């Protein structure tokens, strides 16, 4: 039997329609038509504007009859639309009173905040027609992807090795050899590489639709086109970036991304999205009308009492995340990505903003963060906060967690960088960082700590050991942009050199960094390309570069194969040893009654760590019998770190009889003696001690 609501009740200029359903928001396929639903707290009238795909002028503008509004929601079902060739937007009428935060302008055609696909930037880098009055255009999407048996992997947090990547940079370089460089499809062709490396989670930098031409400018000296390359500037929170899809020109970006997620899952790799809810692409009062500003400015943005935009994000505006309406949009968005795209986790850019009230003050119990933590759809998703914002709120260690939220541990990054470059007096702090920062996350456990030494923001690992100072001239901002405090050390020469001694030291320092990162408690995150020594030529803020500065050079897979091999072996070592991946903090006690504490600290002398102000040496031992509170059995692991410029003899703690120390990694040894795969570790010749070379790390396994 047919439903009675599949028949039109109204007609306007040849278009047939009827009252719609307020839920769900956005444009949704229904029998015979499309249900359009949109809301505004302050508008007085709303008009649906329909376009033939790509046409500058609308084909029809259907005003919502008054009876089609329920509360603040306008909804309408329009029949017989060509699903693939229709674009839509809205006009809103309402007060113009900027001093009161109201900026309605019915001359603007506005993008649906819930648009699930957005046209207008279909192919990356194709210059837009700026005369077109409607730049970013809502499109209709079939949400009917065939997932077969796939569902989010739910890999335990403690078992993750995260790989932070930029979708385009990963395969855009001609050396990638993929059929569709710089796309979701390109990543799919490189899954074997990721799998062999051993990472089991990719965290994609923003993939919500953005405009690479936003703030588009040319370099003042070179004339090179500069882009909004990273995409931390969202146009619509429900739409994947078309220009990242090989099929974006066909409007199939939704299917292409879902197919990628499905294939990554099939290979045991989770997918995290870097999401940017702290601001939008609309800038401040001088910025363009795209969507929110013209639909309900006062609701979506944090405004000063005079109606100007608060700027806690450093980008002109701040999304009003703890307004209940905005909060529910954020929740709808994440539920959509978790359920429709099977996304495994989210990393929230400048997440501290999400904890501010509508006037900017930090909330003790932020309702948005709480809602996300307790949401049933998101219940198994990983939630990771960048626990600071551009307004000066720094919450690393104190971000409201509700037992769910992990954090990018900026203190881990800073401490490990300083220790590795040889600063004295870091040993005491390193104890905390290597244990998963129990000083910061006492009740939350080590999995609250996303450990990283490098991320997209800042130097790559190669550049961290090759430059003392940032070199951002190519950004066209006079080298004023980007962080000044990098805790980097160039190993005695700024930039590339032919000096074999310096190059060997740099290589060792990179291996030291990986060895420390991959033997720390907590969740390691690796920056794309660091495993093959990708360089940004000293640029520590490459947000605008669609070129070799950003693109991963796949030629380095062979030219830096020793580093890649080292990293692969260390990741394999981490996966092989649950004692490195504890869910709860180590105690220093022997819960398994094996005669050794779960973790013990050592130095040049066994059982006697030097935590004084001059120390540059440190070692720890994990007893496998105590792995995961004694729940699983593992080998002993011993890690000795020497960031001093002289070699040191480290006395080794004695193993139970019958067990021997074997070498899993030694950054001081030339490849291939620098790392061994699990099962191939050679027995250490002297079981009583080991010489750790200058600025070197040794990893031993006792079995």
């Amino acid at each position: 039997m047919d439903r009675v609501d599949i028949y039109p009740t109204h007609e306007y200029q040849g278009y047939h329609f009827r009252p719609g359903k307020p839920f769900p928001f956005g444009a949704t396929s229904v029998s015979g038509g499309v249900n359009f639903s949109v809301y505004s707290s302050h508008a007085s009238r709303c008009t649906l504007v329909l376009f033939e795909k790509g046409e500058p002028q609308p084909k029809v503008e259907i005003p919502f009859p008054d009876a089609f509004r329920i509360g603040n929601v306008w909804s309408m079902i329009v029949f017989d639309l060509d699903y693939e060739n229709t674009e839509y937007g809205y006009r809103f009428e309402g007060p113009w009173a900027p001093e009161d935060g109201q900026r309605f302008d019915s001359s603007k055609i506005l993008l649906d905040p819930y648009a699930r696909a957005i046209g207008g930037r279909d192919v990356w880098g194709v210059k837009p027609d700026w005369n077109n009055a409607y730049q970013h255009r809502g499109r209709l999407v079939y949400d009917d992807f065939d997932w077969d048996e796939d569902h989010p992997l739910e890999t335990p947090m403690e078992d993750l090795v995260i790989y932070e990547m930029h979708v385009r940079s990963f395969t855009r370089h001609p050396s990638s050899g993929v059929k569709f460089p710089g796309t979701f499809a390109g990543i799919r062709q490189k899954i074997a590489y990721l799998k062999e490396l051993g990472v089991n989670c990719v965290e994609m930098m923003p993939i919500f639709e953005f405009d690479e031409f936003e703030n588009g400018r040319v370099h003042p000296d070179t004339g090179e086109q500069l882009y909004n390359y990273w995409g931390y500037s969202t146009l619509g929170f429900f739409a994947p970036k078309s220009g990242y899809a090989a099929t974006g020109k066909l409007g199939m970006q939704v299917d292409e991304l879902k197919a990628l997620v499905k294939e990554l899952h099939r290979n045991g790799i989770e997918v995290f999205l870097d999401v940017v809810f702290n601001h939008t692409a609309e800038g401040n009062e001088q910025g363009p009308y795209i969507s929110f500003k013209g639909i309900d400015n006062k609701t979506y943005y944090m405004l000063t009492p005079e109606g100007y935009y608060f700027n806690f994000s450093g980008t002109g505006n701040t999304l009003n995340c703890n307004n209940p309406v905005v909060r529910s949009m954020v929740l709808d968005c994440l539920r959509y990505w978790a359920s429709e795209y099977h996304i495994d986790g989210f990393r929230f850019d400048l997440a501290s903003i999400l904890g501010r009230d509508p006037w900017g003050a930090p909330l003790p119990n932020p309702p948005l963060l709480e809602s996300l933590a307790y949401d049933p759809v998101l219940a198994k998703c990983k939630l990771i906060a960048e626990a600071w914002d551009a307004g000066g709120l720094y919450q690393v260690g104190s971000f409201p967690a509700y037992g769910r939220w992990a954090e990018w541990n900026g203190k881990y990054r800073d401490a490990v960088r300083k220790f590795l470059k040889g600063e004295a007096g870091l040993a005491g702090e390193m104890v905390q960082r290597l244990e998963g920062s129990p000083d910061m996350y006492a009740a939350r456990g080590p999995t609250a700590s996303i450990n990283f030494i490098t991320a997209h923001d800042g130097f790559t690992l190669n550049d961290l050991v090759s430059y003392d100072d940032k070199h951002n001239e190519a950004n066209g901002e006079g080298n004023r942009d980007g962080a000044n405090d990098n805790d980097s050390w160039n190993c005695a020469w700024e930039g590339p050199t032919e000096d074999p001694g310096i190059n060997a030291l740099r290589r060792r320092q990179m291996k030291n960094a990986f060895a420390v990162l991959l033997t720390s408690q907590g969740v390691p995150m690796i920056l794309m390309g660091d495993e093959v020594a990708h360089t940004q030529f000293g640029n520590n803020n490459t947000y605008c570069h669609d070129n070799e500065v950003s693109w991963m050079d796949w030629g380095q897979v062979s030219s830096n194969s020793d580093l890649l091999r080292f990293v692969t072996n260390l990741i394999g070592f981490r996966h092989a040893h649950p004692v490195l991946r504890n869910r709860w903090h180590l105690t220093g006690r022997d819960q398994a009654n094996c005669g050794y504490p779960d973790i013990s600290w050592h130095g040049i002398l066994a059982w006697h760590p030097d935590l004084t102000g001059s120390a540059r040496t440190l070692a720890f031992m994990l007893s496998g019998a105590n792995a995961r509170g004694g729940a699983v059995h593992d080998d002993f692991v011993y890690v000795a770190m020497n960031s001093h410029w002289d070699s040191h003899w480290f006395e080794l703690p004695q193993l139970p009889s019958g067990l021997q120390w074997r070498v899993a990694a030694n950054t001081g040894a030339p490849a291939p003696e620098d790392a061994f795969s699990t099962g191939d570790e050679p027995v250490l010749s002297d079981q009583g001690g080991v010489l750790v070379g200058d600025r070197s790390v040794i990893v031993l396994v006792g079995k």
Partner: protein
Amino acid sequence: MKVDVTKLQEIQVVTIVGEIDGSTAPQAQEQILGLVEPGAKIVLDMTGVTYMSSAGLRMLLVAYRTVTSKSGRVVLVGLSDELKDTMSVTGFLDFFTCRDTLEAGIAELA
């Protein structure tokens, strides 16, 4: 778009010529689904298909799901490189057995 059906012993050969998009996919779907009976063996000859939109891909998958739910089999033959690429990166190709030629497709089902 034009759809022709011929029968070679127990195999239905469906030859599609032209563009499959939102306006033509329903017709193709209707004709293909009309052939579905338990254990049906269907070859879809795509040699003459010059363009397939998202609706076209969905039509193919609906056909696949319908046929396989009745223990039948579908083979695609003659996909152009471009169509194959599109189907591959959007995940649709994963469902199908594909052969280059009609003969090979028939051999697959024989």
